């Protein structure tokens, strides 16, 4: 019993350590001072309005959304079939292929960003946008393969075999039997990949340039010269967005199954 109380206190402290800074940011976003201060002097919602007035925030926000969206869609198009083959076929060296697909989660994002920059922008002379898209596709792919893969592995393989005996080709079986039963995994991996792409800094940082700035980059640029609470306000908006997405994932698949 005493042990449990000790554990609870410890867990509470850890939680507070993680949570209090976030709380402070939320509070500062409502402050009336022109610099971030805690505690705040008065209450205002002006900074939220400022966020939307700032053209570079809005533009980079829209760009980030688009890149994250299309990167995730690409990752799904490639990742779902790949996850399926990995789960169902005992290809030679399957575990190596698996680790290869998961490697961007192990390799530091800085390295991924730098090598993409070297290869795509410098060597291949691709436009930045395409480099960004490819980079974010690579960020998203491991999440898709991992989450969708685990959903497929949980699916009873004999329902595919049954559909073959009833006359389905392999492709028909995939479309009619596998896909409808892994929608929750696809949805969850979409959300997860999207969030990770949206929040990614290193890859976006390397692959940005004139007119092509992702939200985290433009946020950092802004902080360098300004220290007003609109940064806090923007952070709160992003946090809210993430919380909503996480809530949707939790409702559809459960967070436990993807972590």
């Amino acid at each position, binding site marked *: 019993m005493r042990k449990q109380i000790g554990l609870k206190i410890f867990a509470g402290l850890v939680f507070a350590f993680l949570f209090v800074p976030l709380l402070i940011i939320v509070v500062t976003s409502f402050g009336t001072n022109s610099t971030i201060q805690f505690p705040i002097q008065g209450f205002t919602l002006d900074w939220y309005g400022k966020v939307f007035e700032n053209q570079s925030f809005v533009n980079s926000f829209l760009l980030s959304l688009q890149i994250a969206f299309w990167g995730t869609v690409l990752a799904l198009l490639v990742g779902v079939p790949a996850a399926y083959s990995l789960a169902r076929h005992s290809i030679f060296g399957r575990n190596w292929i698996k680790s290869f697909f998961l490697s961007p989660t192990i390799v530091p994002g800085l390295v991924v960003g730098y090598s993409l920059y070297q290869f795509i922008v410098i060597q291949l002379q691709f436009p930045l946008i395409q480099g960004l898209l490819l980079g974010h596709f690579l960020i998203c792919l491991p999440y898709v393969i991992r989450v969708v893969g685990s959903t497929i592995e949980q699916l009873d393989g004999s329902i595919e075999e*049954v*559909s073959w005996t*009833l*006359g389905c080709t392999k492709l028909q079986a995939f479309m009619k039997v596998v896909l409808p039963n892994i929608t929750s995994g696809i949805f969850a991996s979409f959300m997860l990949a999207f969030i990770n792409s949206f929040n990614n800094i290193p890859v976006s940082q390397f692959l940005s340039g004139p007119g092509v700035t992702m939200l985290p980059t433009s946020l950092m640029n802004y902080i360098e010269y300004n220290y007003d609470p609109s940064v806090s306000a923007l952070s709160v908006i992003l946090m809210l967005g993430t919380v909503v997405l996480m809530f949707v994932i939790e409702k559809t698949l459960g967070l436990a199954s993807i972590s």
Partner: protein
Amino acid sequence: MSYVELKDIRVSYDHKNDILKDLNLSIEKGELVSLLGPSGCGKTTTLRVIAGLINPNDGEFLVDSQNLTKVPVHKRKFGMVFQSYALFPHLTIRENVAFGLKLRKEKKNVIDQKVKDILAITGLEELGDRYPKQLSGGQRQRVALARALVIEPKLLLLDEPLSNLDAKLRVAMRIEIKRIQSQLGITSVFVTHDQEECFSISDKVAVMNKGIIEQFDTPEEIYKNPKTEFVARFIGFENFFQLTRVEEGKYKAGDGTIFLSTRQWETDKRTGTIRPDDIDIVTGTEPNENNTVSGTVKVRTFLGKSYQYEIETPIGALLVNESDDVIYQVGDSVTLSIPAHKLIIV
């Protein structure tokens, strides 16, 4: 030639060990044939070869004189019922059953009629709009059966379809399967490792052991005249003793006792075997008569409707089941009669 022919089928998963070794099986039209055998003997593998889910390394598979060995699974269109039922979780019962017909692009009213008919035959009319999750084990089993039957397959394949049901339901369902199968006259292959289930449902039984068929016969013939020691052991013969052959139907045991067998003596085999139920404990017989041995009771076990005795004899320890009319004690000396018409030579 039979309706279904498996010819010298060989299957190896790892190119080292053969899981099926030159397996041959012939099935007549309309028959229900069971594959019976212990776990790992290759029953499922045989069924999957028939279904087309596995390509045999060697051998041929024919149905109705057509060579189907190289025909892929989706073109064979045999009905298959899996142990796990494998219902489509995202479809209603009606959609599950209609799945195969829709793939054949049959007209909607034809599909509806066929689905309705098969749901009636399998007693599922009321459940058409439910999802698999909302059904009991027995109901799911019937949906799996209906889904396989509605496509009017040339062949119905069932892999331990009853093993997930409780004992009572198993009996009810196997009667049901047999009824539907004979009503529709569908040639069927039924995999099981339950002897009673297999005997009650089958026209013929193939007893398998380590990738070969040891005996292929009617249930009665297998029960009465097992051809090999493996088959005998598998269907409840528990007493085995070595004999030497004197002449046709006449054998001599190690201690010199003469055993006559009127059952099966044409082979060159040398092991006598008999079920515990078929040995009698007798009084008033001299132990040196033919087909009798004397012995001492070593262990007595209560089986409910009878007692089982383990009796030490000169030809080895024998298990004997006796009713409770006379109860023997451990240490009693008894004389055992092994009737000539019950003694099998394998």
